[in-house]
């Protein structure tokens, strides 16, 4: 019989991905409500150094699954290894962070068990022993409550921010179990990861950010946002489509593929608020959204909102701020 919750701990060359701590927090929360033991799994060629760190969390055990072919991440290697671990431990629930790495191999893993992942969950609730997962759909416009109605194991991934890393509870020292796993043919060869250009702009230290999205419509209209940023004494940033269109350089992109920021004030102009953008800025102090679409998900996390034309609102806002600053 399957039992327990297994949490996948992601690392790169022994450096822990912080969303792994969020996944541990998720597994602890669900595991304790389901009254199930929680184990963690680390994959690699040599993860000896990381195992004691993970064993410090409140877990029953930490399994290190090793094979030389796991020295570098590949979807083939990780899928084979995780399949072996899941079959050996036979858990009811497998919890993973919804990172780019997990997205790359976990669907393949779930398919080996004849199913899909319940992917990109933003929260989960246990009622009478069964879990209801909540996912964002339609680019964040709606939420869906999802239940698993099949045989275990259930594979679930959690969006960054669904749980806080500091919620991961420390324990009295979990047992570390090592396991040699078989890995088949690896059909892809990775090269070393790299950064395109040195980030010229570090927005993570900005106090005030004015960010623009698709709603700004053309490159020429950026001047409007620039003037507002100038009046506020803040930095200009953007959502992905603006940087893809090269209206602003990529080092000004906020979101999962860009920078993560938490300024005192974040002003979102014409940004609808896709989840990939929200994860990069939702911890900002005061959030302002100006958007013509009242249903835009950005309004869900905004403190102040103007539903309307940003081309009308922004020049007035800029002038009013100048007035206030002149007076104060």
């Amino acid at each position, binding site marked *: 019989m399957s039992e327990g919750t297994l949490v996948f701990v992601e690392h790169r060359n022994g450096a822990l991905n912080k969303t792994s701590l969020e996944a541990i927090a998720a597994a602890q929360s669900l595991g304790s409500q389901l009254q199930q033991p929680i184990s963690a799994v680390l994959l690699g060629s040599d993860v000896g150094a990381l195992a004691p760190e993970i064993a410090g969390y409140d877990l029953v055990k930490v399994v290190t699954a090793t094979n030389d072919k796991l020295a570098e991440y*590949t*979807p*083939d290697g990780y899928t084979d290894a995780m399949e072996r671990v899941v079959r050996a431990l036979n858990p009811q629930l497998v919890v993973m962070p919804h990172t*780019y790495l997990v*997205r*790359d191999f976990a*669907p*393949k893993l*779930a*398919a*080996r068990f*004849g*199913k*899909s*992942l*319940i*992917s*990109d969950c933003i929260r989960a609730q246990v009622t009478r022993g069964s879990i209801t997962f909540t*996912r964002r*759909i339609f*680019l964040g416009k*709606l*939420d*869906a409550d999802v239940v698993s*109605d*099949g045989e275990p194991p*259930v594979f679930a991934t959690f969006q960054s921010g669904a749980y806080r890393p500091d919620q991961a509870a420390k324990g009295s020292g979990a047992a570390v179990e090592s396991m040699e796993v078989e890995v088949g043919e690896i059909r*892809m060869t990775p*090269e070393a*990861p*790299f*950064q395109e250009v040195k*980030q010229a702009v570090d927005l993570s230290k900005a106090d*005030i950010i004015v960010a623009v999205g698709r709603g700004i419509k053309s490159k020429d209209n950026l001047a409007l946002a620039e003037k507002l940023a100038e009046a*506020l004494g803040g930095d200009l940033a953007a959502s992905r*489509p603006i940087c893809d269109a090269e209206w602003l350089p990529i080092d000004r992109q906020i979101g999962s*593929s860009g*920078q993560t920021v938490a300024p*005192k*004030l974040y002003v979102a102009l014409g940004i609808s608020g896709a989840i990939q953008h929200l994860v990069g800025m939702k911890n900002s*102090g*005061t959030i*302002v959204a100006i958007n013509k*679409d009242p249903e835009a998900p950005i309004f*869900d*996390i905004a403190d*102040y*909102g*103007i*539903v*309307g034309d940003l081309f*009308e*609102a922004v020049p*007035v*806002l800029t002038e*009013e*701020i100048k007035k*206030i*600053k002149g007076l*104060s």
Partner: protein
Amino acid sequence: MKIIVMMKQVANKDAILRINKEGTWIEEGDLSFEVSESDGYALEEALRVKEKLGGEVIVCSMGPQRVKSVIKDALARGADRAIHVVGDNLGHLSPYAAAGVLAESIREEKADLVLTGLQSDDFGYAQTGVILAELLELPHATIVIEVDVSGEKLRVKRELESGWYQWYSMSTPALLTIQSGISQIRYATLKGIMAAKKKEIKEVTPLADIVSRPSHQKIDKIYLPQKTKQTQLLGNGDAKAGAVELAQKLHTEARVI
């Protein structure tokens, strides 16, 4: 080189979504539809590879007759022929079942390259492409932003998190999921639209036993996201008045200016 591009039709990005009476899905009757954004970039990438190496681009889409608009648009942009997997409720298949249906619909084509978008704009599972690779026994790479292919050698640039990238090499046949925004998507020309009328669209019916596979996940209900914050909406429809009010609030209430 034979390239198959998987393209999904989804609700228009700007569409107002209305939840159905049962609270289980949206009302689709009066919706307008478009192709899921990243699938459009997958098609563009396929057309560019074909221009460089020659060969054939086949577009494959699944759904009711309305998805023909996605197919015809792809043919007008330069795809050579199409496979339409016809069915009314296929949009609700789990990624595993959807990938199963698609795998059987394209398996015999023995494509050198299968391209998909990285995730759909409706369910956003981000799984169908990867599972399709598993079922077709192809190596894969996800969130691809650059494709360099010559003969059987394939080198792709993948996007990692926080501004990091990584190149992966593999042999064709292979499957890639393509990130949005990696190129400038071409428009259909009038000539392309005319030529598309003569191009083949093969209709196939999905295998019933795959469609009825247990999904292992069921949508209980859908609803507007719960607000985590109480948003003060300002201006009551008057954007200028809202802006005046906002400046005051930022000064006296939030005290950020």
